[in-house]
């Protein structure tokens, strides 16, 4: 018996045989399913490129091997941890987009009698296949961008060839993206019911309780009290500092959705134009989702202010020496982390918006038919994302500045240029998210022009 026959027999006897055949049937080249898969696959490609680029940058620090090199590795690891959340958000967005594109044919499968289990298996297989194809393209993206990233200086020299990842690390990166797609797909499936008549729609707006603000205030008070308490051992002081840092992030996560809701309600009351009314209502309809979309920014901005202010302050106190590289490199690292974090949120927002436009194509077309200008539709969906982005970025920076006011205050006084540069990074990051949304405008245009065609 030939090898292919053995494989075929093994597949036939597997519980995955039917899902595998259905997946191939729905996604084989030339079907509309494969066309709809391009956008999710492209999203996974972006995820992979960013993941490998960040990972390669961090691993390039292994080239030194001395004590200071180890400190660089530690800081890089910290930056990587900070980027995990935005990366997960981006991966989740790509996976949700992938699942949404399949809604129609999944409900058709249910109508034809496929079990819920089979539909789940088909979904997971499709997500894995799209993620794999996208991840391979993402590796190519990493290679294309490498010459530019290699020019970044650390310890007085460009990263150079140390930036190249070991092929095994690239394989692990691809596997991680596929795993992320599968897990996100399974999680997103748990949130929807795919019935023979379609995908369940929700009716109630999410509510966010004000008690979140109360708990947040309590944490702030505890953190400030801990910071003001004299401590003996350096380790304990470090623990208190990290505790305050973690507390600050917890505050942001608790208060975030509530803050987004309060801000949107205020905008709703003041809305005088159709686009302002729509933008506020879209946020209020799902404040937790609006927060999830931008929550990664809170961590990035919070850390950027803490680390940036600390490094800026130390720079003013240091004389000539090797530490100069360290502090300058910390600032470079903060800059890269802020921009990478915003870039991931920009991609995630863009992917979510593309999915939303496709999901709501018929609604947008009907609004356009009624005479709603394309610009109004565009402004409404853009506002719904940008308002929370600006709010979260500003609020996170403010919370960190308040929690560590002696450091941030002194940094502003003694090294205003570095702090202005830091603020500039956040502004550039916000503009990146705006650019990510602008990139989805052609999707809206093509949806509206379908009438004309």
């Amino acid at each position: 018996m030939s090898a292919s026959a053995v494989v075929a027999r093994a597949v036939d006897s597997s519980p995955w045989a039917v899902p595998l055949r259905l997946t191939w049937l729905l996604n084989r080249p030339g079907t509309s399913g494969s066309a709809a898969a391009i956008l999710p696959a492209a999203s996974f490609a972006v995820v992979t490129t960013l993941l490998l680029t960040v990972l390669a940058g961090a691993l390039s620090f292994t080239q030194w091997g001395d004590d200071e090199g180890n400190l660089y590795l530690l800081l890089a690891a910290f930056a990587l941890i900070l980027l995990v959340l935005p990366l997960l958000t981006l991966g989740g967005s790509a996976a949700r987009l992938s699942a949404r594109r399949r809604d129609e044919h999944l409900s058709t499968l249910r109508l034809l009698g496929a079990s819920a289990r089979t539909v789940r298996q088909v979904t997971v297989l499709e997500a894995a296949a799209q993620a794999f194809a996208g991840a391979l393209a993402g590796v190519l993206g990493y290679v294309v961008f490498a010459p530019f990233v290699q020019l970044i200086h650390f310890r007085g020299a460009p990263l150079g060839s140390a930036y190249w990842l070991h092929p095994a690390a690239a394989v692990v990166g691809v596997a991680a993206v596929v795993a992320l797609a599968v897990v996100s797909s399974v999680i997103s499936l748990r949130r929807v019911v795919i019935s023979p008549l379609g995908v369940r729609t929700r009716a109630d707006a999410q509510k966010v309780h004000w008690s979140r603000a109360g708990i947040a205030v309590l944490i702030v008070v505890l953190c400030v009290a801990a910071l003001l308490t004299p401590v003996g051992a350096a380790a304990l002081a470090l623990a208190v500092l990290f505790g305050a840092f973690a507390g600050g992030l917890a505050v942001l996560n608790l208060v975030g959705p509530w803050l987004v809701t309060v801000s949107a309600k205020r905008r709703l009351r003041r809305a005088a134009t159709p686009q302002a009314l729509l933008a506020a209502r879209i946020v209020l309809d799902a404040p937790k989702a609006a927060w999830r979309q931008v929550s990664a920014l809170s961590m990035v901005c919070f850390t950027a202010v803490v680390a940036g202010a600390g490094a800026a302050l130390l720079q003013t106190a240091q004389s000539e020496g090797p530490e100069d590289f360290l502090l300058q490199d910390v600032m470079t690292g903060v800059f890269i982390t802020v921009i990478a974090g915003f870039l991931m949120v920009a991609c995630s927002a863009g992917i979510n918006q593309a999915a939303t436009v496709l999901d709501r194509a018929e609604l947008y077309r009907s609004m356009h038919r009624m005479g709603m200008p394309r610009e109004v539709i565009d402004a409404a969906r853009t506002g719904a994302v940008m308002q929370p982005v600006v709010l979260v970025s500003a609020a996170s920076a403010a919370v960190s500045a308040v929690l560590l006011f002696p450091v941030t205050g002194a940094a502003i006084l003694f090294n205003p240029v570095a702090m202005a540069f830091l603020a500039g990074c956040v502004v550039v990051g916000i503009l990146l998210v705006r650019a990510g949304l602008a990139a989805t405008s052609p999707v809206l245009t093509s949806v509206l022009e379908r009438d004309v065609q």
Partner: protein
Amino acid sequence: MSTSLPGAPLLAAANLTKSYGNSTALAGVSLQVRPGEATAVMGASGSGKTTLLHCLAGIILPDTGSVRLLGTASDVPAEITSLDDAARSALRRTEFGFVFQQGLLIPELTAGENVALALMLNGTPRQVAEQQAAAALAALGLGGMEGRRIGELSGGQAQRVAIARAQVNGARVLFADEPTGALDSRTSADVMALLLQSVAGTGRALVVVTHDPEVARWCSRVVTLADGQIVADTAGVAR
């Protein structure tokens, strides 16, 4: 043979043709719509009825032919087919109202805000728009429901909101594309009654695209399309 009401037409289409690739959707259709008239456009799937509605409303442009809207504020007939996209959009906001099969209301907005949006797009201040929207909803039996979200309404109620939205801006022509397609027969009758009520004695005209003879029976005129041409133009039962 036309069986339309006598008098000056509101909307006049002449020799409309429209093709999509090798497929001909409209092949020389001429149609006049008069005030107070409820016209049902019937035909099999692919007969060109939705394309005709889209051409009449300026949503798409025909390959050849013209569509004129008469009795505009400037007393100069608007040659819809010669207007650019922005001007046609403005015309749809001010002169036309639309009701679609699924209502296609914005789910994030309340019923009142959905109706008010049509006015706000024309520059009406929000407070005034919301007051007028509440009045329009009340006139259609939805008084006190302006704060409800669309997901909290029944199919019939949602379609009433869509009707209120279509007529709140003082539209002179209402276009309805399979307005009862997603409703049961009793709710369909309610919706058709409301649509006709919004036309009777108001100087408005109603154009309903439907494949349902029961819906067509409500109208004063029934135009039947086949292969992109009008094959029958008869008086409806309701006349």
